[in-house]
């Protein structure tokens, strides 16, 4: 119809595609999801074991009490909330990549958006566990923290940031789940059509009976765009609200207006790093190099670099304001962070989040997958320590010197933390095994269009 459009500069970029649209399904799905590298099973077993470990630790904690954690007075929040914020943060990149970049029509997103979305869903799911792990009476928390009628005739406190959290996280989980699943529906239909027997039945059920008719696509596209538009502000709101958990209390080191943007930037940084960390090995395990291209990964690293510099700026501003405001308690906390007993975590955070990512300015580094991978893992470590640092160092020594204390995570907390990683990776790997890791229908859109002309061209080339 419009052949001029097909020879636009985009097609020049498409030159790098070595595969065609018709290769996608067989390449990604194979005989219903390609047979993974054996390392996949090792990874899955390891993840499941860690998850089990964390589960046992949690069970112990429920039976014996929160005393099993290393928490104390004054450090009432510790590793659990660190993990909560960390995982919520991880979740952010998914929505950013799938929703915001969808609206911006960034083409590199199409190959990794599925993995980013899945990461979001599982990360938020993991994050959602932590408030429950963290509370003293989990058997009541789930019931009383939701605004449902109860025998006490008492509602929830809508002035509490934790209730904001409840709403923000549950909305975020629901919306990202819907968004992810909506994208999956056409691909599930592909899976259904490639499989037999029980699988076919299950995939058929999951695909809602999608047949790919133009009418379905019409409403689907509209809905998808609207959902992307709805999800976009969530990227900013969720971590802002999580940051208010801290910013709304008057704890020095927490009570800061910069927290929302600072947290959002940090979240995207950690999310992008996590996407990279996840996609690179799985791309290898499932031989998806043809579909997830280095360009796409490099674009992800660029985004990482950008957010890293935002985060670095936020650190600096935080310090500057703590000093400039003349707030005595605030400045004491910041001095303590940098030089106090918890300074190790602070400097880990600074180096991992601000210094090492600077290497990504170099294209060679960005193209060198192993080095980039190390940097991304370091960023993840750094972001975890950023939350740890914010939470712990503000709590140990606050207003009244007489009540200062110290904190050291207990084995239970460490086990649950390891368990959360296991839990996350376990679901992610299961997902990878049973669902398409790249969005088939969207990937096809960015590949060379199956035009008659190009087809003839191709056949001419191959015959010659």
């Amino acid at each position, binding site marked *: 119809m419009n052949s001029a459009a097909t020879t636009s500069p985009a097609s020049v970029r498409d030159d790098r595609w070595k595969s065609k649209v018709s290769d996608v399904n067989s390449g990604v799905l194979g005989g219903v999801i390609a047979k993974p590298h054996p390392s996949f099973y090792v990874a899955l077993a390891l993840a499941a074991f860690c998850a089990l470990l964390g589960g046992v630790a949690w069970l112990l904690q429920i039976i014996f009490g929160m005393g099993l954690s290393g928490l104390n007075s004054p450090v009432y929040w510790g590793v659990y909330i660190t993990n909560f914020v960390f995982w919520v943060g991880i979740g952010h990149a998914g929505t950013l990549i799938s929703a915001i970049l969808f609206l911006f029509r960034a083409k590199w997103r199409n190959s990794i958006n599925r993995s980013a979305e899945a990461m979001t869903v599982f990360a938020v799911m993991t994050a959602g566990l932590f408030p429950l792990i963290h509370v003293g009476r989990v058997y009541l928390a789930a019931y009383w923290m939701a605004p449902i009628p109860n025998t006490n005739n008492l*509602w929830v406190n*809508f002035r509490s940031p934790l209730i904001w959290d409840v709403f923000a996280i549950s909305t975020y989980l*629901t919306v990202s789940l819907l968004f992810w699943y909506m994208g999956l529906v056409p691909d599930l*239909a*592909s899976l259904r059509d490639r499989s037999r027997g029980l699988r076919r039945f299950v995939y058929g059920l999951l695909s809602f009976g999608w*047949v790919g008719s133009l009418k379905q*696509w019409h409403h689907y596209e509209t809905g998808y765009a609207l959902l992307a538009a*709805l999800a976009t*502000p969530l990227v900013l*709101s969720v971590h802002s609200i999580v940051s208010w958990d801290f910013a709304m209390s008057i704890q020095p080191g927490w009570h800061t207006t910069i927290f929302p943007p600072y947290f959002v930037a940090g979240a995207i940084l950690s999310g992008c790093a996590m996407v990279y960390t996840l996609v690179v090995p799985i791309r290898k395990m499932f031989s998806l190099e043809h579909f997830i291209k280095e360009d796409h990964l490099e674009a992800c690293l660029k985004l990482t670099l950008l957010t890293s510099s935002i985060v670095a700026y936020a650190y600096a501003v935080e310090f500057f304001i703590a000093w400039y405001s003349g707030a005595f308690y605030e400045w004491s906390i910041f001095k303590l962070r940098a030089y106090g007993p918890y300074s190790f975590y602070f400097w880990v955070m600074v180096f991992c989040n601000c210094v090492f990512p600077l290497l990504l300015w170099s294209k060679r580094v960005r193209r060198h997958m192993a080095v980039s991978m190390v940097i991304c893992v370091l960023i993840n470590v750094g972001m975890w320590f950023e939350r740890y640092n914010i939470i712990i160092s503000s709590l140990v020594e606050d207003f009244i010197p007489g009540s200062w204390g110290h904190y050291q995570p207990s084995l239970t907390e460490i086990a649950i933390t390891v368990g959360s990683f296991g839990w996350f990776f376990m679901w992610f790997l299961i997902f990878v095994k049973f669902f398409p890791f790249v969005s088939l229908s969207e990937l096809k859109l960015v590949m060379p269009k199956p035009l008659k002309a190009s087809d003839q061209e191709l056949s001419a080339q191959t015959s010659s």
Partner: protein
Amino acid sequence: MQRQESGVLALFKHLDEFATAARLVQNKSGFDGHQVYSYASYHELMDVAESAYGPSPVRWLTLMGSLVGCSVGFLMPTLMDYDWPLVVGGKTAGLNSAIPNVIFMFELFVLFGALATIFGMLWFGGLANPRARIFDPRLTDDHFAIYVPGVLMDSEQSRYLRSLGALELKAV
């Protein structure tokens, strides 16, 4: 088992040919109730859909859902607060402390909007249809198709489709 209508399925492989074909059969007589199938939402096809179905009503559902969510997000905290007006942190209940309601308004705006969108997309797409007819597994792989119901293989319509570039015709 429901009665399955028989018809002809014309399979295409090339987007340009198919887009033209879909547009041409759109208003042609003898193609009543035809369905167009694709494995991806190519712009060319979406343009055809736009002209065939007009703007999607999903938008309105989204708007409705969002507005409902927004008002629920305001009313729920306010009314619940007045049900038992407790003072916390020197803040009195209800409208006096309505600032955080913005959060609930926003969150429920998004949540209800998203739910309505999904609902609309499914509803208008005729989805959640456990007995959908799957004509050919290739339709979700790399083939486009036009299905014309109530038509035989050697009919005028079939020939027309073949002339438009259909690689294969199937009686289903």
